[in-house]
C-alpha cells in the first residue's frame, strides 16, 4: 500500500481548509413564485418562490492558498449564483460538493481498504472481531477479504457489521460550498456571500373592513412569507420584492445519497417455498417506519379577526421596475415556517360598489346571479396611491359588535393610478336572463334590493363584431361590448340586440 503512493506523481499539497460555521448577519430578499398565478395560494409543502440571501461572515484567512468552507447556507442554494466578495486575494474558484456521507458512501469510500468486521452470534451473544478488506461493493452487495478467505457481508445469518477507521475524505453531511483563495497575507476578513436559494415564497394578504357608515373602507395587508428550507435565519433583515421576475430552469446536481442494499447469493432452501415466515429473517424490512400525522390546518389571515394593526412599514422603494418592501425591524425567519408581518395600512379608502355579469351571445341564460365588487382607484385622492402587490383579499362588514365576511378574492399587482377590485360576494338579488330567437337576443335584469344599484353586463368576447340594433347603445369596456346601467330600487330593465350576419 505504501508503494502505491509512488503513483501520485502529480500530487500537490492540499490547501488548508478554513471553516466558517455561520453568518454574523443575514439579509433575505424574498421573491414570489413567478409561475404562481394570482388565483393560486402558496403551497407550504412546495414553495416555488426563491430568495436572495446576503450574508456577512468574519473569516480568518491564512496567507497563501486556502479553501474557505461556508457552512450553514440554505439547502435550496443555487450554487452557480453564489457571489463572494471581500476576500483580499479574490476568488480563484468556487466549488460546491454534493457527495454525502451515507452507509453506501462509507463502503464506496473504503473500497480496497481495511475495516473491522464485528460478528455477534444471535443466540449466544458471542462477539468476535477481525480485520477485513472490502473487495467489492456497494452496488450489488459487499464482498470482503478476511483472514479465512473471501466472504460476503450479511449472508451467513450471523449479525455482521463493518466498522470503519474513519470517514473517507470528501464526504459531508450536507452539500458544501467552498471557495479557493490566495491571500497575500493572513488577515481577518469580512466576507460577503450572496446566493439565490429556492424554497421561499411570499404573498400579500389583504383584509378590508367597510367603515360603519359605508362609503369607505380600511385596508390592511399582511406580508405572508414562508421558508421551506431546513435552515433558519435568525435576526434577519427581510425584504420582499413584488413583480414577476424572469427565471430559468437550472440543472442541479441532486444531492442524493446512494442506497446501500445488501444482496446475497441465492438463499433458497428445501423449505423456502413453504408459506411460512422465514426463520432467518436477518434484516427486518423497514416497513413504513414513519407515519406523518398532520395536525392543524392552515388558514390565511383573512379569517382572523383584525387585531390592532401593527405599525405600518415605510412605503415601498423602486428597485428598477420592481417594488421592494422592507420589514422595518429584523425578524427571525424559522425553518419550515410561515410568518406574517404588516405590509401596509390605509384608512378611509373611497370605493364604489358595482355589480357585474357576463353573457355570451350564443347562450340562453335564466336567472344568472351578478357578482358584487368594490372598485377603488389606486390614487392619493381616493385614500390609496401606493403599489399594491398581488395577494388574497378578504372583505368584512360590521354588524353590531361583530363583523361579517362579505367576500374572498384575489388581487393582481396593481400600480399607482390603476383600478383595484375587491370581491364582495355573489348576489341572488340581482338576476340576469337572456333569451335566444334566431339572431335576436333579449336581455332582462332585475333588482330585488330596496336601493338603486349600478351594474355592468359584458356581452361576448373581445374581438367580436359590433352587435346590430341594440335598444340601448353598448359601450366597449376593456374591448368587450358592455351594457352599463343603473337599476332603480326594486326595478328591472330590458335590452334587445341582434347578432351581425
Amino acid at each position, binding site marked *: 500500500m505504501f508503494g502505491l503512493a509512488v503513483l501520485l506523481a502529480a500530487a500537490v499539497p492540499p490547501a488548508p481548509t478554513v471553516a466558517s460555521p455561520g453568518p454574523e448577519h443575514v439579509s433575505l430578499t424574498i421573491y414570489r413564485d413567478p409561475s404562481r398565478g394570482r388565483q393560486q395560494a402558496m403551497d407550504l409543502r412546495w414553495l416555488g418562490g426563491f430568495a436572495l440571501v446576503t450574508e456577512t461572515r468574519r473569516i480568518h484567512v491564512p496567507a497563501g492558498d486556502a479553501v474557505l468552507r461556508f457552512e450553514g447556507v440554505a439547502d435550496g442554494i443555487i450554487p*452557480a449564483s453564489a457571489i463572494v466578495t471581500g476576500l483580499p486575494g479574490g476568488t480563484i474558484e468556487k466549488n460546491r460538493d454534493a457527495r454525502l456521507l451515507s452507509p453506501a458512501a462509507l463502503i464506496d469510500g473504503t473500497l480496497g481498504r481495511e475495516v473491522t468486521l464485528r460478528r455477534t452470534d444471535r443466540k449466544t451473544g458471542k462477539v468476535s472481531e477481525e480485520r477485513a478488506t472490502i473487495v467489492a461493493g456497494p452496488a450489488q452487495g459487499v464482498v470482503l477479504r478476511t483472514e479465512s478467505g473471501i466472504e460476503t457481508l450479511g449472508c451467513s445469518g450471523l449479525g455482521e457489521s463493518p466498522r470503519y477507521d474513519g470517514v473517507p475524505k470528501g464526504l459531508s453531511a450536507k452539500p458544501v460550498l467552498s471557495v479557493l483563495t490566495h491571500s497575500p497575507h493572513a488577515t481577518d476578513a469580512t466576507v460577503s456571500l450572496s446566493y439565490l436559494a429556492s424554497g421561499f415564497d411570499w404573498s400579500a394578504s389583504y383584509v378590508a373592513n367597510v367603515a360603519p357608515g359605508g362609503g369607505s373602507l380600511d385596508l390592511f395587508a399582511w406580508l405572508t412569507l414562508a421558508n421551506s428550507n431546513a435552515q433558519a435565519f435568525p435576526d434577519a433583515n427581510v425584504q420582499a420584492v413584488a413583480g414577476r421576475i424572469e427565471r430559468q430552469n437550472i440543472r442541479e446536481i441532486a444531492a442524493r445519497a446512494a442506497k446501500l442494499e445488501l444482496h446475497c447469493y441465492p438463499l433458497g432452501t428445501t423449505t423456502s417455498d413453504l408459506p411460512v415466515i422465514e426463520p432467518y429473517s436477518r434484516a427486518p424490512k423497514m416497513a413504513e417506519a414513519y407515519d406523518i400525522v398532520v395536525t392543524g390546518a392552515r388558514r390565511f389571515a383573512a379569517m382572523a379577526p383584525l387585531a390592532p394593526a401593527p405599525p405600518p412599514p415605510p412605503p415601498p422603494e423602486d428597485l428598477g421596475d420592481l417594488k421592494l418592501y422592507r420589514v422595518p425591524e429584523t425578524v427571525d425567519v424559522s425553518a419550515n415556517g410561515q410568518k406574517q408581518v404588516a405590509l401596509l395600512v390605509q384608512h378611509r379608502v373611497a370605493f364604489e360598489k358595482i355589480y357585474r355579469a357576463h353573457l355570451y351571445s350564443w347562450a340562453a341564460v335564466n336567472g344568472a346571479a351578478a357578482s358584487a365588487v368594490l372598485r377603488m382607484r389606486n390614487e392619493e385622492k381616493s385614500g390609496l396611491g401606493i403599489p399594491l402587490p398581488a395577494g388574497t383579499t378578504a372583505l368584512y362588514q360590521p354588524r353590531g359588535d361583530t363583523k361579517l365576511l362579505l367576500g374572498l378574492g384575489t388581487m393582481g399587482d396593481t400600480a399607482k393610478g390603476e383600478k383595484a377590485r375587491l370581491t364582495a360576494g355573489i348576489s341572488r338579488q340581482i338576476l340576469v336572463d337572456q333569451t335566444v330567437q334566431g339572431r335576436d337576443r333579449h336581455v332582462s335584469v332585475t333588482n330585488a334590493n330596496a336601493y338603486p344599484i349600478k351594474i355592468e353586463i359584458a356581452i361576448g368576447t373581445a374581438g367580436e363584431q359590433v352587435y346590430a340594433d341594440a335598444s340601448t347603445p353598448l359601450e366597449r369596456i376593456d374591448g368587450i361590448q358592455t351594457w352599463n346601467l343603473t337599476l332603480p330600487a326594486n326595478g328591472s330593465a330590458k335590452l334587445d340586440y341582434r347578432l351581425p350576419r
Partner: protein
Amino acid sequence: MRAAVLAGLVLLPSIAWAQSAPQSPPGAGGTAQGDLSVTIYSNDLALVQDVRRLDLPSGRTRQAFADVSAAIRPETVGLAAPDATVIEQNFDYDLLSPSSLMQKAVGETITLVRTNPGTGAETRERAKVLAVNGGVVLQVGDKIEVLRDDGLPVRAIFDKVPDSLRARPTLSVSLDSKRAGTRPVTLSYLSGGLGWSADYVALFDEKAGTIDVQGWVTLRNTSGTSFYNAKTLLVAGEVGSGDDNANPNLYRPRPVVSPLHRAGTETAAREQLGDFYLYPLPERTTIADKQTKQVSFLDVKGAPATSGYVYHAQWNDGADQPESASSVLKFSNAAKGGLGDALPAGTVRVYMRDARGQPQFIGENRIDHTPQGSDLVIRTGDAFDVKVQPAVIERTRLSSDRWRTAMRYTVTNAKDRPVTVELVQDGVPWWWTDTRITAESLKSERRDASTSVWQVPVPANGTTTVTATFETRF
C-alpha cells in the same frame, strides 16, 4: 495478520485497490490517474487525455487502467505507447458481488464455518458447490445439502476472487511492446457526465447607464469519478454526437423577447478551434465527483447599458386588465462600447442596488453562444409600473374576405419619469400580402409581414393611448 493482509492486497486485482482512490484527494490515498487534460464541451461531453507512466515488459502484456471515468464511452478509447502496439482493448463489466462470486464458484470447493446456536462453537468443513439456481446446492463429503437449509448461521468462505470479476467496470488493453521499460502512455477517451455553461453576474446601475459584468464558467461533474489536478479546457460549442436530436429544422417556439437582437460580426481575442472559442482554466484543478465548480473568465466594469420596455399584443384579442410590459436590459458585447468578448451560452443574472446600496436580484435569462459585437436584449421580468391594455374597439366584416379591426392600446406609466415602450402587435395575418394599416395615431414600423412595432413615449405618471385600424383578410 498484517502480512496476510498485505499478501491479499498483492493478490487482489490492482484495479480494485486503485479504484478506491477517487474517495481521497491526491496525497492522502492514491489515484492511478497520471497527467490529466480534460476538454469539456457544452453538451455533456468531455475528452479526457491521461498520460500515465507505465513499466511495460517486453512482449505481450495486458494493462488494466484504473480511475478512468465511470461514464466512459469505451468504444472511443485510444491508447498511444512508444515502442508498443495495441493488440486489443477490453471493457469488462462482469462485476464482483456475492451472487457472481457464488456463481463462479460452481465446481469449486469452498469452506463452510458452522456456528452452533447453543454453544457458539464453530466447526469448519470443505464443501463443493454443485449448482446455484435459486439456492446453493453443496456436496459435503459424500452427502448433498442445500446451504443454510436449516436457517442456522453458516459462513461461506471462498478461497479467491475469480480473475474475471471486477469491483468496477474496467478498461484493459493488451499491448505488444518491443522493449521493456517505463514510458509515458497516453490514454484518451470520451466521457459523459461532464458539462459546463457560463454564469454571468450583471450589476446594473440605472442612473449611470452602465453594467459591471462578471463571467464565470460553471462545470458540473456527474460522471461518478473525480479528476485530479487536471489541465482543463472548455470549448464553447457543441460537437455533433451520435444521439443528436437537435435538428435545426425542427420548430422551436420563439421566446417572448429573444435575447439576441442583432448578431455580431466581430472576432473575439480568444483562442479558437475551428468555429469554437476555447476557454482554458489558468491553473490545474481537481474536478471532484458531484461537484459544481466555478472559475472566473470575464470581468468588465462600466459597460454602457440601458433599460427598456417591450410589450407583445396578440392578434384580435384584448385583456380585461392591464398587463405588465416586459422589463429588458440592453447592452452590447462589441469591443467598442460593450463587453468586448464573445459570450458562451449561459445564464445572465441581473442585480441592481437598492436604496441602501445592497445589490438585489432583479431577474435572469439565458443566452446562447453569442459572437462578439452582438446587441443583447435581456428580459428580466414584468414591470410593475408600466402596463399595456390592448382592446379591440371595433371589428367589422367589410366583405366575405375583408375585415376591419380597430385596436386601442392604453399604455400607462406609474413611474415618476417618462419611459418609452416598444409596443409590438404580433400575428397580424400575413399569409396574404394585402394587410394594411389604414389609420394609426402613431407612426408604426413594419418589422416583418406579421409584426407592427410602435415606439410609444409615455410621460411620467401618465398615459398614452395608441389606436390603429387594420384591414386584413381575417
